[in-house]
C-alpha cells in the first residue's frame, strides 16, 4: 500500500508541477535539435520537430491524470446513483435500468468510446465524457449487487420501520456500508481510464497536436520505427505503464486492506 501511495504522490507531483519541472517548452519547435538520441541535454531525446521528449512526457501526465480522475468521477456519480436506486427500489425501475446497463455492457467499450469521441469531436473533454460513459455499467452493477446484499439487513429494516425517508436510508445507511468495494473499483477504473485515454489519443481522438499526449506521441513515433528512433515512443510508453501500474497496484492493495475475505494470501 505504501509503495502505491508513494508512486501516486510522485505522479500527482509531476502532473501538478510539470510547468516548473519540465526543462523545455513541450510544443516549441527546434528543427536544429530534431531526432536526437537521449543525452544529458535531452534525457529522453527529441522528436522530429526538435521537441524535448522528456518535457512532453511530463506535460502529458496532466492530460492522462485529469482524464483518469474526471472520467472516473463521471462514471462513479452516474453509475453509483443508478445502482443505488435500482438496488433499493427494485421493481420496474430496476428492470429497465439494468437493461440499459446490459446494453452499455454489450457495447464493445473501445468502439463506444471511439464513436462518442468522434461524434462530439476529438478533444480532451469529450474523451473524458466517453470514457466516463463506458465506466458507468461497472459501477452500476457493483453498487446494485452491494445494495441487494445490504438492504434486507436488520439496521436497514429498522430504519424503514421508524419512518426514515428512502433517500436518507440510501445515503446515510446503505452507501457508507458499501463504499469500500466502490473505492477499490474507482482506483482500478482510473487505471483503465488512463489506458483508454492513451488508446483514444493513439487513434487521434484525444488532445490534438501540438499539445502533448502520451498516446498521440506513441502514434506519431510509429513512422520513425524503421529508422530506429526508439526513444520517441519509449518515454510516453513507460510513462503510461507507470501510471496504470500505480493505480492497479493501489487498487489491489486497497482491495486486500478493505475486504477481510480477501486478506488470505493469493
Amino acid at each position: 500500500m505504501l509503495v502505491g501511495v508513494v508512486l501516486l504522490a510522485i505522479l500527482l507531483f509531476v502532473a501538478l508541477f510539470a510547468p516548473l519541472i519540465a526543462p523545455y517548452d513541450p510544443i516549441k519547435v527546434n528543427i536544429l535539435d530534431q531526432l536526437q538520441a537521449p543525452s544529458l541535454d535531452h534525457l529522453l531525446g527529441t522528436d522530429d520537430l526538435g521537441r524535448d521528449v522528456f518535457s512532453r512526457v511530463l506535460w502529458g501526465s496532466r492530460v492522462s491524470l485529469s482524464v483518469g480522475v474526471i472520467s472516473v468521477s463521471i462514471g462513479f456519480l452516474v453509475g453509483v446513483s443508478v445502482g443505488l436506486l435500482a438496488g433499493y427500489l427494485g421493481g420496474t425501475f430496476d428492470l429497465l435500468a439494468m437493461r440499459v446497463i446490459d446494453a452499455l455492457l454489450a457495447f464493445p467499450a473501445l468502439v463506444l468510446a471511439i464513436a462518442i469521441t468522434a461524434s462530439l469531436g476529438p478533444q480532451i473533454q469529450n474523451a473524458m465524457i466517453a470514457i466516463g460513459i463506458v465506466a458507468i455499467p461497472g459501477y452500476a452493477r457493483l453498487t446494485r449487487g452491494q445494495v441487494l446484499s445490504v438492504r434486507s439487513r436488520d439496521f436497514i429494516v429498522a430504519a424503514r420501520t421508524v419512518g426514515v425517508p428512502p433517500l436518507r436510508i440510501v445515503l446515510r445507511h446503505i452507501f457508507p456500508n458499501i463504499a469500500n468495494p466502490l473505492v477499490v473499483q474507482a482506483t482500478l477504473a482510473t487505471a483503465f481510464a488512463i489506458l483508454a485515454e492513451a488508446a483514444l489519443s493513439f487513434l487521434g481522438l484525444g488532445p490534438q497536436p501540438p499539445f502533448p499526449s502520451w498516446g498521440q506521441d506513441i502514434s506519431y513515433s510509429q513512422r520513425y520505427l524503421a529508422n530506429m528512433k526508439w526513444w520517441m515512443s519509449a518515454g510516453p510508453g513507460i510513462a503510461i505503464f507507470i501510471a496504470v501500474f500505480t493505480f492497479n497496484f493501489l487498487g489491489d492493495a486497497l482491495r486486500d486492506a478493505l475486504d477481510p475475505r480477501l486478506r488470505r494470501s493469493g
Partner: protein
Amino acid sequence: MTTYILRRLLLMIPVALLVTVGIFVIIRIAPGDPVLTYAGEDKDPATIATVRAELGLDQPLPIQYAAWLSRAVQGDLGRSFQTHQRVLEAISERLPVTLELGLAAILISVSVALVVGTLSAIKRNSALDLLTTSVTLAGVSFPNFYLGLLLILLFAYVVPGHLLPPGGWTPFSTDPADNLRRLILPAITVATASLAVNLRQVRSSLLDVFGQDYVRTARAKGLRERAVVVRHALKNALIPVVTIIGIQVGAIIEGAIITETIFFIPGIGRLAVQAIPSQDYPIVQGVVLISALSFMLSTLAVDILYAFLDPRISFSAAEA
C-alpha cells in the same frame, strides 16, 4: 434448461435494440455530411439531394431507424457509404481474419496461463510465484499498442535477419506459412492483457481448491502431488477460468481493434476504426451489432457451460 435459454435469448432482444439505438444516435451526432462521402464532393446540390433521398437520410431519425431495423431483421445491413459494398459482405470477409487473430491470442494466453499459473500455485511464495505475480500486474498495466510497436521494433528491425514482418496479412488459404509468420506478433500483442488476467485466475482458483478438504484427503491418502493437482485440483479450479475465457472469446472483436490498426490487419476492428471518423453509418452499425450479439451469446454460452461444469449450480442459480 430450455426455458432458461429461451428466456435469456428473449432478454437479448431489448438489449440488442438498445445497443442499435445507442450507436444509431451517437454516430449521427457527429458533424459533417456522410452523403458527401457517398456521392462525392464534386457532385451538384441536386445530385446530393437525390442521393440523400435514396439513402433515406432526408427522413426523421425515428423513420431512418425503423427502416434500418426492418431491413436488418431480414439480413440486410445496408451498403458502405465509402466502398458501396454490402455491409454483411464486408463483415463476412473480415470476420475470419479477426477470429483467427483472436483465437490465436486466446490459445497463447490460455496455454501459458495454465502452465505458469499451476506452477505458481504449487510453488506458492517462491521466486517463480513472486515473478508471476509481478508479471501479472505488469501485463495488465502495459499499453498493448506500445507493446505491439516494441515487438515490431524488436523482431522486424533490431534482431538480425528481420525475423518477422512488421505488419500486413496473407490469408491462410493463400500461403499458410506467411499467414502464421504475420500472425505471431499481433497475436502476442492481443494475448498479453488476457494472459495476465487468466494467469491470475488460474493461480487464485488453484489456491482456493488446494485448501479444500477433498484435496487434503487426496494428499493424506498418499497420492503423488502430480495426481492431486491434475486429477483433482485442476479440474475444479478451471471452472471459473473457463467462464472468463468464454467472455474473452465473445470480446474478440473489441480486443483486436487497436492491434489490427497497428499491424495493418484487414479485420473487423480496423474496419470499425476507419468507418467511425468517416461517418460510414451502415458499417459502424453493422460492426457494433455483430460485436454486441457475439458478446451476449458468449455470456449465455458461458452461463450454460458453468451450470454443466459445476453440478452444484442449477439453472435458476445460474440465472441469478
